[in-house]
């Protein structure tokens, strides 16, 4: 870490506030003497600022204004109430659609979007194609958000899955959080025979519970996000080969298995 070339590379972490302690102090000392890094950190500031503005825009509750503005109700409060609720909703809807590709949603936003979509549908604002696009985008956004949620969960546990039999070269990894669900990734899964699908199982002390179907890409890779019942305590995770459409409890060969550390 004393190599100055290493220090020059810390600009991004520094700009995002991700350096701590000694590493942070060492880099700040380096900044004092390195014009190149100062320029780079400076050039990242607008990016960091844009990230602050890049999320979905959510309208704060009206009551918040009175808490924030000293004196609460003054003339400006009256002046700035949104004139037409319908128009304000549509404007908010437009901003939601614009930001939908970003990939994150607060729980509050889900309810808000459902509400907005009902309103928009009623207003005949959507054509068929646009609707599908929005649904796809939202699904992708939700998935990314769920994935990030699991990966950053304080109670996250990792489970490594080993390839079995015909899939000896395959490997899988599950990230499980009791509170936030499951992210599962696998590599080198054999190509699916016709009429078959891989199924992921969370094995509890009483029975395996399905965590969804897996369709690997042509290189045998797959990543999925699944909600799991917070009440269950997995002892293992497994992937089996099952008839297309999946089954309520496993019947086929096991392709991947991993034990959950107690």
């Amino acid at each position, binding site marked *: 870490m004393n190599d100055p070339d290493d220090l020059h590379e810390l600009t991004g972490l520094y700009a995002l506030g991700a350096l701590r302690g000694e590493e*942070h102090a060492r880099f700040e000392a380096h900044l004092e003497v390195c014009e190149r890094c100062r320029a780079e950190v400076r050039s990242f500031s607008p990016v960091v600022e844009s990230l602050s503005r890049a999320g979905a*825009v959510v309208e704060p509750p009206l009551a918040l204004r009175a808490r924030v503005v000293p004196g609460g109700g003054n003339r400006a409060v009256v002046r700035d109430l949104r004139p037409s609720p319908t128009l304000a909703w549509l404007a908010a809807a437009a901003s939601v659609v614009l930001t939908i590709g970003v990939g994150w949603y607060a729980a509050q936003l889900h309810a808000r979007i459902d509400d907005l979509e009902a309103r928009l549908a009623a207003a005949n604002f959507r054509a068929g194609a646009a609707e599908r696009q929005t649904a796809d985008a939202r699904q992708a956004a939700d998935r990314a958000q769920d994935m990030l949620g699991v990966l950053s969960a304080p109670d996250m546990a990792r489970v490594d899955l080993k390839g079995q039999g015909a899939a000896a070269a395959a490997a899988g990894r599950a990230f499980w959080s009791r509170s936030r669900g499951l992210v599962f990734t696998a590599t080198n899964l054999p190509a699916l025979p016709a009429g078959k699908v891989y199924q992921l199982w969370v094995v509890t002390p009483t029975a395996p519970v399905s965590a969804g179907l897996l369709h690997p890409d042509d290189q045998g890779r797959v990543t999925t996000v699944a909600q799991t019942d917070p009440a269950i305590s997995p002892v293992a995770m497994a992937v089996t080969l099952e008839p297309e459409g999946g089954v309520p409890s496993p019947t086929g060969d096991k392709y991947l298995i991993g034990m959950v550390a107690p």
Partner: protein
Amino acid sequence: MRTEDRDADARAIHKVAAGDQAAMAELYDRHGRLVYSLALRILDDQADAEDIVQEVFSQAWSQAGRHDVARGSVGAWLLMMTRSRAIDRLRSRRGQVDPVPFAEGAALQLADLSPSQEAMASTAEQVARVRDALSRLPLLQRLSVELAFYEGLSHSEIAERLEQPLGTVKTRIRLALMKLREALGEGKMA
């Protein structure tokens, strides 16, 4: 953000420093939505996000006189305070107590580290470009940036979470910011 808004912000922050409540209301109406949205994005809790908005504007109210508009826009200043406070709350919720040292704060002590106001003002189009560029980053780069920015994780915490060597995280984050910077630059030329 439009130039008129920035000029209006500069005037408003001076009035706020003199105790003008209507100017405070004006700032809230212009920036409250973004401040709330960022706090909600980080904390994923409406009540916590509302608390943060209140804290940020209360801090703006008491420190308006110290804000140097030549150093950066009022909006950027409010958002920087928002992120800092929201992440501190998130980390204390998780039992991580070390405060996050923000480069933006440190920038004030290092003579020429903070960009000019011109450079800081991102337009809606530039923000859209950055958002789009973020969504097109390789997953590892994107997760690294998001874990640092929205979850307040440190270099070593990100490396541990993504099971990557420290050096890889360092390089990926720098690469990601360079790509986002490039996207922002395209927006500036347009």
